[in-house]
């Protein structure tokens, strides 16, 4: 019976034949292994080694005399940032050793991390550039590939403006590569540059930044050890971030802490919880408000914290009043008594931390969800101290850093936005003329308009021209390090792929993009090397920037991301300007010099003190950091500094700011990593102050709230003349005719920041966090039913919606209903809401099961890399759907049966195996999202470039996921849709 996803033994017969069919001929390393395992005959030839041999003599450290070099890099498979220690012998990665000295992973790994040595050994990688000619993959050289791609891009640019090209980057880039890719988009002349953050935590970034200043994890994995209550909502770290669980479980044990898991599934994390709260998918806000209802009702909130540091909590109170236990239970299914218990623990057993992941963010209400979570933390005073905080677990090695580097459609690096000031700032950093940059774009308006998000690129290809707010539809796409099965509505995505004139895939693996459509020409697959073959810094979820050294040279003909971008920029004609201050030798770009350029510009984020030298020093002294505080021990070269200088690390590297372990921590001096809430939203609203009251960071000379620092503010405080002559000169150059308006974030000298810190002040000011974020579509989060909901009683019917729409918003939704947003536009494309939600009334009967999706421990992301790894692939050989025994029985489905999962859009269907389990509740099904290579029942293995097909293929969950986007970031809805399941 398939009660587990893997039963510990390999389905050898079936997969072995797959191995055989698609392996190149000859006795290669894998071929040998196969025969060693399967047949004695092949071994006889090897004489000395008996038939018991389990490995070929050619691999591994067979020459024990040759010197072994240890190199450190960072695991690429999630955001925890586990140090990988590689043993390299004669240029070959021969062994992996535990990184005991890393304060983050302390030697440990999960299944993925313990198997990363396979990555640069993998023979299923793209080996050389390929071009699709008449439906057949042909090997070509790098020069030919890049020449042809550049010529075609320039032709499209000429014909259809630069906006016709969509640039899709990667969260597996280093910070330096992510920055370079964003810069490439800018120099090309478009904001259509995006990466995976769009589909993992874009809503977190937007929601949390709009609450207290920065959209990132406030504390760290290690700091969870200090918590007395750990609540995990919409996350399953036991599978998605296993090393984080080390800190969670140790915290739980040492403090006898409460571990509360709020999730529709009884996850592997829930198995270790002290309390599991099962909710209906898509009801996070009712549950949070239900918890807050008890907190307010019993006066458990932190009144002093709210008074000093929070704006607009009264507005939240009004909304929360509606969510009495009965209503919460009616909507979410959670009993009031249970929530009361959770509320009391969370509010009184402090410090409490709230951990969340994509279960919260990948929603049509993603931004509102994370806002509600943040408000719960604010109401209970659980921000800015050890053991508290919003511990947001991100998904990729460097998704935090790639987001920070502005690899996004709505901002330049370091969250400067896209307005003229932002462009002028970065043009100054890049030392290019603003007017030259302007001419790269179609217009100033488009230069300042957010581009098309990665969740909608195919709509930008397919929709009628008049529905797209840019001169043309998208006609070409350049994808680096990004899977094709990660966006919802795959049947439509495939049509979009087929309509593109040019598709360029630069990746270690061909990815779903290479095989899922019936393209026959105009497609290139370029072998980019993996993260382990490339040096650079990576930001872990806790904002620490770990420097990873190249372990081995790029294998086969692969090249690293920097060099590919440089070679392309050369052919596109702007390498001279783009690499003006970046060191390039014989086509090899220096990662260090890119980081130095970032350091010169990313003031607003405090991404400026982390010079390559400081980061490398930290990596060389990992053992000197405390595992709980992440602080360097006295008497060591890193004394007093926080591990890998988590941003903000204010000012220049020479100022030696120690980095910020815990954001907004007023108990520390700013020079020791202390902070306040960022005064980002003005100083006053409707007569109420937005600056902190009676609260300041330790040692601050201004004892109370203050706005962000500018030259004008310095002058008013009488601190202006503390700037040095050089600093004043730089400020005068930046400011031109309005030097008073130069702020801490545009001052290229760092002088304003330096002076503010000298007085114990945060350069960004000392403001209040916002419980009411008036600029968002829902200033106070309100519950909105998922687009496809089985609870049609909780949404208005079509006639009521017609009345609502006719009244232009004056008529509210009927009491007890929670409709989604009305149809609107955003990011250059239409964004449908209510009109699609109304389909629920028609489809809920035929598609009665809620479908949700998530991660498995063995695989990551789109899964091409991990499904090609033989050690991981063996553990998880089938795509499956988890279905509750009750639903299975009603459908005559037995465990391990093949079933069809069908979705309510595009006649979508997926053929997968049934895993009958109580892990999901009745009426809920779960699919992992890592599979690809099958599409609507068809095995597409033959469409992969020969020899590059992953070992394990399967249907993609996103084949059956549906429409639905967050109004703020266009995050896709992957966690709640409807489906039907029947025997295949």
């Amino acid at each position: 019976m398939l009660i587990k996803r893997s039963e510990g033994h390999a389905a050898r017969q079936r997969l072995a034949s797959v191995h055989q069919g698609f392996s190149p001929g000859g006795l290669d390393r894998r071929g040998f292994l196969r025969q060693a395992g399967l047949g004695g005959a092949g071994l006889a030839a090897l004489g000395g080694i008996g038939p018991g041999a389990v490995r070929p003599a050619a691999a591994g450290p067979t020459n024990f005399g040759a010197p072994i070099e240890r190199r450190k890099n960072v695991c690429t498979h999630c955001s925890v940032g586990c140090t990988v220690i590689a043993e390299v012998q004669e240029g070959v990665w021969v062994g992996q050793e535990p990184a005991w000295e890393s304060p983050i992973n302390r030697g440990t790994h999960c299944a993925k991390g313990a198997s990363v040595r396979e990555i640069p050994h993998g023979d299923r990688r793209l080996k050389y550039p390929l071009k699709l000619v008449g439906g057949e993959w042909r090997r070509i050289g790098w020069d030919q590939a890049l020449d042809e791609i550049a010529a075609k891009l320039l032709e499209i640019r000429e014909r259809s403006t630069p906006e016709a090209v969509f640039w899709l980057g990667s969260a597996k880039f280093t910070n330096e590569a992510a920055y370079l890719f964003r810069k490439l988009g800018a120099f090309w002349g478009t904001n259509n540059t995006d990466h995976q953050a769009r589909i993992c935590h874009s809503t977190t970034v937007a929601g949390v930044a709009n609450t207290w200043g920065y959209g990132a994890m406030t504390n760290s994995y290690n700091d969870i050890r200090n918590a007395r209550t750990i609540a995990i909502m919409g996350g399953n770290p036991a599978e998605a971030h296993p090393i984080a669980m080390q800190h969670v479980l140790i915290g739980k044990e040492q403090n006898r802490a409460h571990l509360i898991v709020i999730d529709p599934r009884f996850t592997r994390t829930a198995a270790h919880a002290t309390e599991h709260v099962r909710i209906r998918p898509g009801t996070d806000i009712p549950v949070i408000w239900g918890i807050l209802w008890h907190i307010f009702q019993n006066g458990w909130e932190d009144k002093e914290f709210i008074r000093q540091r929070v704006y607009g909590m009264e507005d939240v109170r009004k909304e929360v009043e509606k969510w009495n236990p009965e209503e919460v239970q009616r909507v979410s299914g959670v009993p009031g008594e249970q929530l009361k218990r959770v509320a009391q623990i969370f509010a009184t057993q402090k410090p409490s931390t709230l951990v969340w992941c994509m279960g919260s963010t990948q929603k049509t209400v993603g931004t509102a969800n994370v806002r509600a979570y943040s408000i719960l933390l604010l109401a209970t005073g659980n921000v800015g101290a050890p053991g508290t905080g919003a511990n947001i677990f991100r998904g990729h090695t460097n998704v935090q850093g790639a987001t920070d580097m502005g690899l996004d459609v709505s901002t330049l690096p370091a969250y400067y936005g896209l307005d003229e000031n932002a462009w002028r700032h970065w043009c100054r950093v890049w030392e290019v003329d603003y007017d030259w940059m302007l001419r790269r774009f179609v217009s100033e308006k488009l230069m300042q308009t957010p581009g098309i998000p990665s969740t909608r690129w195919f709509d930008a290809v397919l929709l009628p021209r008049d529905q797209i707010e840019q001169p043309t539809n998208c006609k070409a796409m350049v994808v680096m390090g990004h899977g094709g099965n990660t966006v919802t509505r795959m049947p439509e995505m495939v049509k979009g792929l087929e309509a593109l004139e040019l598709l360029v895939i630069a990746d270690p693996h061909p990815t779903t993009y290479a095989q899922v459509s019936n393209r026959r020409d105009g497609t290139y697959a370029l072998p980019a090397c993996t993260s382990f073959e490339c040096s650079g810094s990576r930001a872990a979820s806790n904002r620490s920037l770990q420097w990873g050294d190249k372990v081995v040279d790029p294998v086969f003909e692969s090249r690293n991301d920097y060099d590919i971008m440089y070679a392309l920029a050369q052919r596109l004609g702007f390498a001279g300007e783009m690499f003006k201050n970046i060191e390039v030798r014989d086509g090899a770009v220096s990662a260090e010099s890119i980081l130095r350029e970032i350091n010169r510009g990313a003031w607003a984020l405090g991404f400026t003190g982390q010079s390559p030298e400081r980061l490398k020093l930290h990596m060389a002294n990992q053992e000197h950091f405390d595992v709980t505080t992440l602080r360097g021990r006295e008497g060591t070269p890193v004394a007093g500094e926080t591990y890998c200088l988590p941003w903000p690390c204010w000012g220049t590297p020479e100022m030696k700011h120690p980095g910020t372990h815990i954001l907004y921590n007023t108990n520390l001096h700013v020079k020791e990593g202390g902070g306040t809430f960022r005064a980002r939203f003005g100083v006053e609203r409707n007569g109420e102050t937005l600056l902190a009251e009676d609260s300041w960071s330790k040692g601050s000379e201004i004892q109370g709230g203050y706005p962000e620092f500018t030259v004008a503010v310095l002058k008013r405080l009488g601190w202006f003349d503390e700037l040095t002559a050089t600093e004043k000169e730089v400020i005068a150059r930046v400011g031109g005719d309005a030097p008073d308006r130069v702020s801490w974030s545009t001052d290229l000298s760092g002088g304003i920041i330096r002076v503010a810190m000298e007085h114990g002040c945060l350069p960004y000011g000392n403001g209040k966090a916002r419980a009411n974020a008036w600029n968002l579509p829902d200033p106070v989060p309100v519950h909105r039913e998922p687009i496809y909901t089985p609870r049609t009683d909780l949404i208005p019917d079509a006639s009521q919606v017609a009345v609502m729409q006719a009244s232009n918003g004056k008529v509210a939704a009927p009491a007890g209903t929670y409709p989604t947003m009305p149809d609107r536009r955003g990011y250059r494309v239409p964004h449908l809401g209510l009109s699609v939600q109304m389909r629920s009334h028609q489809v809920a009967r035929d598609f009665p099961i809620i479908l949700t999706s998530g991660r498995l421990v063995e695989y990551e992301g789109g899964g091409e890399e991990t499904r090609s790894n033989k050690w991981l692939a063996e553990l998880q050989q089938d795509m499956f759907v988890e279905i509750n025994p009750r639903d299975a029985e009603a459908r005559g489905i037995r465990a391990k049966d093949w079933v069809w999962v069908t979705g309510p859009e595009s006649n979508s269907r997926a053929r997968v195996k049934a895993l009958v389990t109580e892990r999901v509740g009745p009426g809920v099904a779960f699919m992992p999202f890592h599979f690809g290579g099958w599409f609507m029942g068809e095995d597409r293995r033959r469409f992969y470039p020969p020899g590059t097909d992953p070992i394990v293929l399967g249907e993609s969950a996103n084949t059956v996921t549906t429409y639905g986007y967050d109004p703020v970031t266009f995050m896709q809805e992957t966690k709640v849709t409807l489906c039907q399941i029947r025997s295949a």
Partner: protein
Amino acid sequence: MARLKFLCDADRCIECNACVTACKNENEVPWGINRRRVVTINDGKPGERSISMACMHCTDAPCAAVCPVSCFYGTADGLVLHDKDLCIGCGYCFYACPFGAPQYPRVGNFGGRGKMDKCTYCAGGPQADNSAVEYAQYGANRLAEGKLPLCAEMCSTKALLAGDGEIIAAIYKERVQRRGYGSGAWGWRTAYKEGLAV
């Protein structure tokens, strides 16, 4: 002299399978052979617990007792290793083993078994330490380098402990006392003829 043992803390194990892939990585174990695996009970239900399983290197090992060619041998550290040059792949040890540890590559077309393969505690085999031939037949010999098995060294939550039985038992006892719960050293009574009182 140390008595080397394994101990899996089921209250820490999260079934991440790091031990499984670490073993594959370190010893280049081929597809289909699982020296280590993770077993889960009550999967998906309250009470779900996982445990990482491999050869426990038993005291008075039953595999050794039934082997017709006496290919098993004990080391001074209490490990149970075997000599693949003697093994005839008969499969008796598989039936005798209470933990299902022995693995066999399939040879030929009629389901024939090859030489038995199992966890060596990363201690190689009877060949010279860290020789190419030892590596080819048995995998790594970390013990000879002063290291412990990689599965335990890399365990994500430090659930799987390896080392001298008394030391790991003390670590486990301290852990249980601190947190107030523990389901015991699973398999110890069977493998080592002693429980672990905490």
